């Protein structure tokens, strides 16, 4: 092959040289001086080097023709840079968006978990369908019985609630994130520590040796990556723990971003030990190779039944309780799934719209190139060869678009890692890998076929006799077929973008509704932090009460701080719910969720610090917050309503007495005041019944500090930290945040979805409008003569304007109608992401439709005005 090439090259060189010599001789014979004769010969011939190159590339082999096609494509593209640039950018947006979202989907939903044999790992918990409660925790007794009885599993593990663990090892104390797991957790998952060993069974028993495993990150950060770390002692929660092992980088079980793992999952440090038999555990297990998920579920339900029969008075023993047994992966990614598929659908729409746009551009170009095509076919180019050539052009466009798109995807994923990390599970596993690249390349090729095949087939079949006529009705027919095709493409684009716009609109309305929720207090200018008091040093109520009594005045007196308080929980963080009794009323059904109330333990300044209005009676006072003071409480309006339905009329709740079940020893407490509701469960949830006790009654093990500051609360973080260290030099603060970010942190996933869907919708709108503008402008150009005739026959400028705008209106109305029908069918998949808006919210549907029609009319106005200004004389002469 190469040899043949070399021979051909040498031959063509001699052949060309012969031409030049002969032509020069002829010129000399005609009387030219030799120099001039040579120059004239060269001029006549053209560029010999390029000719030789052309000959070299003119081989008949498939690869060479393909190369020829590509080169020709590049040349055609260079000739129309505006078209090329538009097409490439459009495709880059579509392919980039799809690649980015696919990267997320692959990492989060598709890739198997990075544990041994992950297809056999399951998650289990408790459902209570009768009370409409799902995915509840279970207690140690239940877990032990399941562990002993279940035959479907090789191993069962459990984990407890996330912990705040305080590390005080040489230097400033640090609040770490900790997980409580059963000793066998690494065996169940099939993971080996990178250093040291895992837990032993005896370390999992109450009173076992305090040992901990740490993350690779903490190991490097605080222990310098020292291989001798295993076996060292570190003080965690004021207790000396032996570090026994280090977990691999990126290990994220049972929660992401953990620093420390300890055993005894039920010993949650937020609760005093007397509550450790409460249901605080969730389970995970490995199926035996023979067992199926259904078998395991059936077996677990039998075991649950047996437990309920044996312990009718314990939690989770109601008759309706069943076991939830699902694949571990499904559970880990459950929250992200609807969001990711919604986004994938949306971005798929964007790609379709982009393809339609480029197809429409190609059809428009086919019109202007139709003569070129016709002549090429007339001169003997085969149809297959023509399609191949046109598809090669599309492939070049799609490849350029795809390459740019993948850069776009890479850039956008690395630009927003934080946004993604807080909203998605398995965030550490998100990166562009080879599978994603293959996806991107495949998508580019598919895209080329999608937008290129139809226009190419159309263009390659020109009706010769018609196309080659300069004008006339027949040529018009071919063009009008293409015009109809473009109109259909535009209608499709409009429909798709309407669906996206409505989806984004619904989310935006939800978001606005969330921001419009009155939190019930003044969240601006509040600084918050978490204080997790270690049980080892603060094991009694008086010790904890003393700490708070010591701390509070110090932070209150910080310059600039106008109020401060300490509470058991903050809005949108954890809460504790409990049962209660009202003196003189029949006792409520224990365990019925509607009779539960949130129990808050606060220092007296809490309502003032947060700005919660007092509705009746009085606030808690300093005199209520001393040991052995007469027991009192403040309730919120929801609880008042629940207990005294006529409130604010009828019997006055103030003065009545309530007893709570959290600690029955406290006895009856007098209601001294009623405060307005706040959204303890986050803004997306309704207010719940709640009572506030003086903190001295239940000084919390884990408490929140709240400071009312002037603007920019985070400025006070240092002073706040110093005040805490002055009381206890080993006590760190965790989660130092403004109250506003505490409230909005629960919006993370919604916000990410809204931003992404919103930007997709914006791109879709832009593409659809550009597509529509193109078609209207083209139709105006095509109808120049017709408009001229109309004008000549007496039509006014306004008539022409109306004619063209009417066309735009018809296109957009058709698209809007189809789009709205599509949105009706599709928006229900995002029901879970909406707030205070139904999936078929008429206002959103109507608003988007009207908005779109207005934008569409504006886009058609420009060509319409051009049409109206057509000079009838000129228009007719051109024809």
């Amino acid at each position: 092959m190469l040899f043949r090439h070399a021979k051909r090259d040498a031959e063509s060189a001699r052949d060309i040289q012969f031409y030049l010599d002969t032509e020069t001789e002829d010129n000399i014979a005609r009387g030219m001086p030799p120099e001039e004769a040579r120059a004239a010969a060269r001029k006549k011939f053209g560029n010999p080097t390029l000719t030789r190159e052309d000959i070299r590339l003119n081989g008949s082999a498939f690869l060479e023709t393909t190369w020829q096609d590509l080169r020709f494509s590049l040349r055609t593209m260079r000739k129309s840079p505006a078209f090329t640039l538009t097409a490439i950018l459009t495709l880059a947006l579509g392919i980039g968006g799809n690649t980015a979202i696919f990267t997320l989907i692959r990492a989060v939903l598709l890739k198997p978990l990075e544990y041994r044999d992950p297809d056999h790992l399951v998650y289990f918990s408790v459902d209570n369908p009768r009370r409409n409660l799902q995915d509840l925790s279970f207690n140690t007794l239940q877990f032990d019985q399941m562990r002993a009885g279940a035959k479907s599993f090789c191993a069962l593990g459990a984990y407890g609630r996330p912990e705040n663990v305080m590390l005080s090892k040489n230097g400033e104390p640090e609040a770490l994130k900790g997980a409580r797991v059963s000793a066998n957790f690494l065996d169940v998952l099939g993971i080996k520590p990178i250093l040291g060993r895992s837990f032993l069974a005896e370390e999992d028993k109450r009173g076992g040796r305090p040992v901990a495993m740490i993350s690779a990150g903490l190991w490097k950060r605080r222990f310098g990556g020292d291989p001798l770390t295993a076996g060292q002692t570190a003080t965690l929660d004021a207790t000396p723990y032996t570090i026994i092992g280090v977990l691999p980088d990126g290990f994220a079980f049972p929660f992401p971003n953990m620093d420390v793992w300890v055993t005894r999952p039920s010993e949650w440090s937020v609760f005093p030990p007397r509550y450790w038999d409460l249901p605080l555990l969730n389970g995970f297990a490995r199926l035996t190779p023979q067992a199926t998920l259904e078998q395991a579920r059936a077996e677990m339900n039998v075991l649950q039944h047996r437990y309920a029969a044996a312990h009718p008075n314990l939690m989770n023993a109601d008759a309706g309780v069943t076991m939830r047994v699902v694949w571990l992966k499904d559970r880990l990614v459950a929250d992200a799934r609807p969001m990711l598929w919604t986004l994938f659908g949306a971005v798929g729409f964007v790609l379709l719209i982009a393809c339609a746009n480029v197809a429409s551009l190609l059809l428009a170009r086919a019109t202007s190139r139709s003569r070129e095509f016709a002549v090429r076919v007339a001169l003997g180019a085969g149809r297959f060869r023509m399609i191949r050539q046109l598809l090669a052009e599309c492939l070049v466009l799609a490849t350029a678009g795809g390459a740019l798109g993948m850069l776009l995807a890479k850039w956008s994923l690395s630009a927003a890692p934080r946004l993604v990390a807080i909203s998605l599970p398995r965030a550490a596993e998100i990166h562009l890998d080879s599978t994603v690249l293959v996806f991107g390349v495949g998508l580019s090729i598919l895209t080329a076929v999608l937008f290129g095949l139809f226009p190419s087939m159309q263009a390659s079949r020109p009706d010769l006799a018609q196309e080659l006529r300069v004008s006339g009705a027949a040529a018009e027919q071919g063009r009008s077929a293409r015009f109809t095709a473009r109109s259909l493409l535009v209608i499709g684009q409009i429909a798709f973008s309407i669906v996206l716009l409505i989806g984004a609109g619904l989310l935006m309305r939800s978001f606005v509704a969330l921001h419009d929720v009155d939190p019930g207090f003044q969240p601006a200018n509040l600084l918050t932090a978490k204080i997790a008091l270690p049980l080892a040093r603060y094991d009694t109520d008086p010790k904890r009460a003393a700490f708070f009594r010591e701390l509070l005045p110090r932070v209150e007196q910080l310059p600039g701080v106008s109020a401060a308080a300490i509470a058991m929980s903050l809005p949108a963080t954890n809460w504790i719910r409990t049962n209660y009794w009202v003196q003189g009323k029949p006792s409520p059904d224990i365990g019925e969720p509607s009779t539960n109330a949130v129990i808050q333990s606060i220092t007296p300044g809490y309502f003032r610090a947060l700005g919660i209005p007092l509705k009746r009676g009085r606030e808690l006072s300093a005199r209520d917050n001393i040991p052995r003071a007469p027991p009192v409480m403040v309730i919120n309006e929801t609880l008042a309503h629940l207990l005294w339905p006529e409130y604010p009329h009828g019997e006055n709740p103030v003065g009545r007495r309530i007893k709570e079940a959290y600690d029955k020893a406290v006895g009856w407490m007098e209601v001294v005041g009623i405060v307005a509701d706040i959204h303890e469960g986050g803004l997306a949830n309704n207010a719940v019944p709640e009572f506030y006790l003086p903190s001295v009654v239940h000084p919390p093990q884990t408490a929140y500090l709240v400071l009312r500051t002037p603007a920019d609360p985070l400025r006070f973080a240092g002073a706040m930290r110093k005040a805490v260290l002055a009381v206890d030099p080993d006590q760190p603060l965790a989660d130092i945040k403004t109250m506003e970010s505490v409230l909005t942190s629960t919006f993370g996933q919604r916000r990410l979805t809204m931003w992404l869907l919103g930007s997709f919708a914006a791109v879709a709108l832009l593409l659809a409008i550009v597509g529509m503008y193109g078609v209207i402008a083209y139709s105006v150009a095509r109808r120049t003569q017709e408009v001229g005739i109309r004008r000549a026959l007496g039509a006014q400028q306004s008539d022409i304007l109306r004619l063209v705008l009417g066309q735009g209106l018809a296109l957009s109305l058709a698209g809007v109608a189809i789009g709205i029908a599509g949105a009706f069918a599709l928006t229900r998949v995002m029901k879970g992401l909406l707030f205070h808006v139904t999936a078929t919210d008429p206002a959103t549907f109507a608003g988007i439709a009207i908005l779109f029609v207005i934008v569409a009319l504006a886009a058609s106005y420009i060509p319409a005005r051009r049409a109206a200004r057509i000079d009838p004389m000129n228009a007719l002469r051109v024809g």
Partner: protein
Amino acid sequence: MPKKTKPEGDLLQGTLDMLILRTLVVGPAHGHSIAHAIEFGSDEILQVEHGSLYPALYRLEDRGWIAAFWGTSDNNRKAKFYRLTPAGRKQLTAETNRWERLVKGIARGLRPAAG
């Protein structure tokens, strides 16, 4: 980069093929004489750079429509001569018929516009 072929070079590639074949009907010729024959034969309407003829010659040779041999020219130089093959002759007939149909079509189309 200099412009090497005029737009009609792409466009009229097929035409050029046909003109070459037609030139060779009368007998073998080398590139130089083919170029001049075409330029002269088309009333110098086809103002194509003569170099653009050469890729066409090699393409036609690849397709088997013409064959080449090295011979001696009038000015006593070694030159590459091209001759029409039977396949080329058949192709020329087909192309000519096609071309005539096309020209008729164009003529029909031109009439109303001219008036």
